[in-house]
């Protein structure tokens, strides 16, 4: 089973990199760009075939390592 984990900063946490990207896009003439938030995508391959078990394991991975839950939130996407 394959999984994709999205790790992004929590709402309200300042994202200076996102801000800089937004400024750069504005500078390139993309004036319609408002707030930009940057995050991470992590692709994983799992030997687990049971979806519920895979999801539980991924949650655990996010809590323990993949995300720092003081500042980040995560979303898990499973693909068969």
């Amino acid at each position, binding site marked *: 089973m394959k999984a994709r984990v999205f790790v992004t900063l929590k709402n309200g946490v300042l994202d200076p990199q996102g801000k800089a990207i937004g400024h750069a896009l504005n500078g390139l003439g993309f004036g319609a760009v408002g707030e930009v938030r940057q995050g991470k995508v992590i692709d994983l391959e799992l030997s687990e075939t049971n979806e519920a078990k895979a999801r539980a394991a991924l949650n655990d991975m996010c809590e*323990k390592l993949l995300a*720092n839950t003081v*500042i980040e939130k995560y979303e898990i996407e499973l693909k068969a």
Partner: protein
Amino acid sequence: MKSAVIVFPASNCDRDAAVALEQMTGRKPHMVWHQECDLPDVDLVVLPGGFSYGDYLRSGAMAGQSAVMRAVKAHAKKGGAVLGICNGFQVLTESHLLPGALMRNAGLKFVCRPVTMAVEETQNVFTRKYLHGQQVTFPVAHGDGNYFADEETLNRLEGEGRVVFRYAPGQNPNGSSRDIAGILSEKRNVLGLMPHPERVVDPLLGGTDGRGLFESLIETLS
């Protein structure tokens, strides 16, 4: 005082810490590789500055999960002193020995210069030789030193007298919440700070403001 310096792959201030410890205590510290599961019998463990594991994922995230950190946590749980400097502070937050997180500097730039701070707490093993409110200047050298915690945690840190070092007005180099430069654990035996006290123990290297921290530890732990 017996001490150990933990060495992670890509630690780069481990030697600075060792030189400062030897100069101040007269004893060579143990250098402990990150794969070790046990610590030697020591009074102080230092987590040095650097870029452990290349700052992969987040600064300090990988080091926080390393084998030696289980031993460091056990040492802290028994009340042993732990000092995390720069990357060491990041490792301490990632391993939950200290609350909060260290984010990318608000100005997005790596900042490398001396900064002036106030010593706001002296009732602990790390800063008892300083005067309350004393201004000290240590160098900083970091890209991820922007201390963040939720309001409740910040209020608790302030209320419990755990903000030990605070950047002087106008000196905050990284956007840290409430100008926080260094904090203590609840039991006051773990200190994490971004600036480098080990780089200011010898006048030849530009200052001696960091000596008080080592003198405090020596007085308490010897």
